[in-house]
């Protein structure tokens, strides 16, 4: 079957199998490897991409289901005006370690900040509970997300000692 969708702002058409997953199409057909495969069961968030602005797990989304919709991956997000603030916050708070979860984290933060969901530190914490990170202990990521969302990090975890 033919898939027609807008990927990172670009109209894209390609032939796919009906059972193909969005993650495989992005990574193997379009070379967009910023979305990572990890848990395969919609738990870890490493494969997060935005479909019409909402974060979805590409590992459990059929490619056919994004027909006619807009898909934004990290390769697209990094071209937007929102990017410099994201990059600066992640770098300054050392919110990146191995980097495997990081693109998915950035996309989730971008979407939920845009939706106005990250209203305070607790909301930031809740919003990111579907994105796992095994390296950082989350603190740097939450600090970066709070900064991007423009909310105080208190009463979240206390930094320093």
């Amino acid at each position: 079957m033919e898939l027609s969708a807008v990927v990172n702002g670009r109209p894209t058409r390609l032939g796919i199998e009906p059972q193909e997953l969005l993650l495989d199409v992005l990574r193997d057909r379009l070379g967009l490897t910023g979305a990572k495969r990890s848990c395969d069961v919609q738990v870890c968030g490493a494969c997060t991409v935005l479909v019409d602005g909402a974060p979805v797990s590409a590992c459990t989304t059929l490619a056919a289901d994004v027909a006619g919709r807009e898909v934004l991956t990290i390769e697209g997000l990094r071209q937007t005006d929102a990017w410099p603030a994201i990059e600066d916050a992640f770098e300054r708070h050392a919110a990146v370690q191995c980097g495997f979860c990081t693109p998915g984290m950035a996309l989730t933060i971008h979407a939920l900040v845009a939706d106005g969901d990250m209203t305070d530190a607790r909301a930031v914490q809740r919003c990111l509970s579907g994105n796992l990170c095994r390296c950082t202990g989350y603190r740097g990521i939450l600090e970066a997300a709070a900064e991007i969302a423009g909310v105080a990090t208190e009463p979240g975890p206390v930094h320093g000692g």
Partner: protein
Amino acid sequence: MTIEAPRRPVRTPAPQVGRSMRRVDAGEKLRGEARFVGDMQVPAMLHGKVLRSPAAHARVVSVDVSAALAMPGVVTVLTGEDLLDIDPYWGHAIQDRPIVAIDRVRFAGEPVAAVAAEDEATAEAAVAAIVVEYEDLPIAGTIEEALAPDAPLVHDGPLRPGLFHGLGTLPERDGNVCYRYGFERGEVDALFADAAIVVEGDYEFPGVYQYAMETHSVIAQWDTDGVTMWATCQHPFLVRAEIAALFDLPLGKVRIVVPYLGGGFGSKSYTKMEPITVALARKAGRPVRIVNRVSESMVTTRRHGARIHMRTAADAEGRLLARDTTISFDTGAYADNGPRVTATGGDAAPGPYRWSGVRVDALCVYTNTAPSGSYRAFGASHVQWVGEMQVDEVAQRAGIDAVEVRRRNLLRPGEQVRPGGKPLDADLIGDIEKVAAALGWDDPRGPDIGRGLSVGLLAAGAHPVSSAVVRLEADGEAIVLVGSTEMGQGQRTAFAQIAAEVLGMDAERVRCMGTDTRFTPYDRSTGASRSTTLAGLAVQRAAQEVRDDLLAIAARIWPDQEHEIVLAEGAAWCGDERRTYPELIAKRFGLSGGQLIGEGGVHPEGTGSYAEGPVFWEVCIGAAEVRVDRATGAVKVTRTATVADVGRAINPQLVERQDEGATMQGIGNALFEEMVFEQGLLVNDDLLEYRIPNTQDLPERSTCVIVENGDGPGPFGAKGCGEGAFAGIIAALATAVADAGVPMHALPLTPERVWRRIQELEKESA
């Protein structure tokens, strides 16, 4: 009046070590540009899939691959019959593991065959089309079953030591016990007989999955040039040696390229999926990529489950006298790093206390379950919580505080930890006081609140062999070549800072590459908290050679003022005169171009034996406050504190991040992570049923205190970190729950387990 001659300005180089510079790799990773093995393709590459045994222990009667081979797109199928021209057994500690099953499978998940096909879906379908006939054998599914007198033997041939067990002479296998480590000092039994206080119990630690988010992944290419692999290796040089030995190739014909790793935590230490991928590529005649799924990585390696019996003796004032520990580690069907885990666990068992007598007997036991290897702070994580619970019980019975009992009994710097080994190189009493203060040890506490702290030591550094090359290029930028693997720790940033400090330049102008064994100098391994300490020392020494070179060139420019020359800001300064590094390099070579090259290395000062070690004692310290819901058994972590006793923090922010990550993994290991095996089968083999910590599991307050006493053997007095807090927090959580009135004898502290214990205790006291 007198007018002084104006003093010539003296340049001071901007400090590079000790500042929290931004990670050099953060942007690349955030942008999704960092390449992991699963993101890479090489020309003509095939996709590999592995057929894994559904049986925990069985004889393989027949393997029929004809239907799989007949499928369009299938290039080849690998079975045991393809390995008749080589000795197909590998294993760095014990050479006990066939590349694919030869005549028998020993755990559910063991590779039986592998398919190479044009795409992954075809490979997967072909795997399903292979027909294997198994004949079930009796199972030793647990430590108890494996140690029973009539236990089925997981292995029955003679034990063959591997290349890198590093434990002297390995004894013969005894039933299912593949390695045994122990020691005894003092009159242990007499001390117990006369002691006023004796604490004794049986304890259990579960099998745990490391969950590096990137699964084990390998691309292998076999051609006349030898073997090339792009692989998720923490220890590429050891894997190179093992692959060379397996396939009878010279070291120089085995090349391993390691890009970024999506987490390791020990799960990618030593050899894992490389042999089967190489064997498949050899048969296919084309490059092959195998990328494990999570369910496959879970049975590729894991943390050992353990059974522990421990008793501790003390006098009436809480002075510790003797400790006696028996530990059995479940290493699964193949030894992997089990022997080293067993020795490290044995060393950690006494804890950092002054004993009159101590006895340890640690067993590494084969079972018909998935193999167990390294996971962050192995050994210490298994046993520290047990020892610390017993120390707390001693304190309670002696009527003293948990901090005070440790103050009275902890070893002091310079005291012997074990005979012949490195004496204590840390101020533990200072550390325990700091962690208690950071937690708020003496704060008033509400109902059902428990507080715990713990201290231990982990033999860190593995084997002290590292080397590095630093190149100063003609444009004044530096390149560091070092074989340590970046898997999240941030060592490329630390190495850049170390080199820049020595070279008098900004760390932002130093680039550190990934490993390619063809070009990168040898490094033993990435693990055991060794990279900053040992590879960092090699980088420092390599940079020092370049520095000496720069000073020698500058001395020719200012021949009479040699001692006034300062290297700073990427230039040599003599007073306010300066020559930039590009100018100095041009002077050396007489034209633009050329480079200054420095080499640095670290090697053992003695024989390098395990007994002489460790490189340093990593301090495993943590404190925790919990609230226990007595109606449900739920444990909520309200506060944690850790002390990163790092000698010197090369990058303080990255040190804190290490402790925070270790704290979260510690919370997962202590409170809910557990691999559940039934009859040898892993029943919770995905992340729906195996939960790891998420943002909602964060403590309400957590603090990391960095201690810098300059007492490490690494560059600028540094020593490693990142593991200690893990063992420290697991133990602190266990002691905190005990302090809340629920002394537990098994981890993880799930609500059900805690609730049952509460009922048991209430029944006992009724």
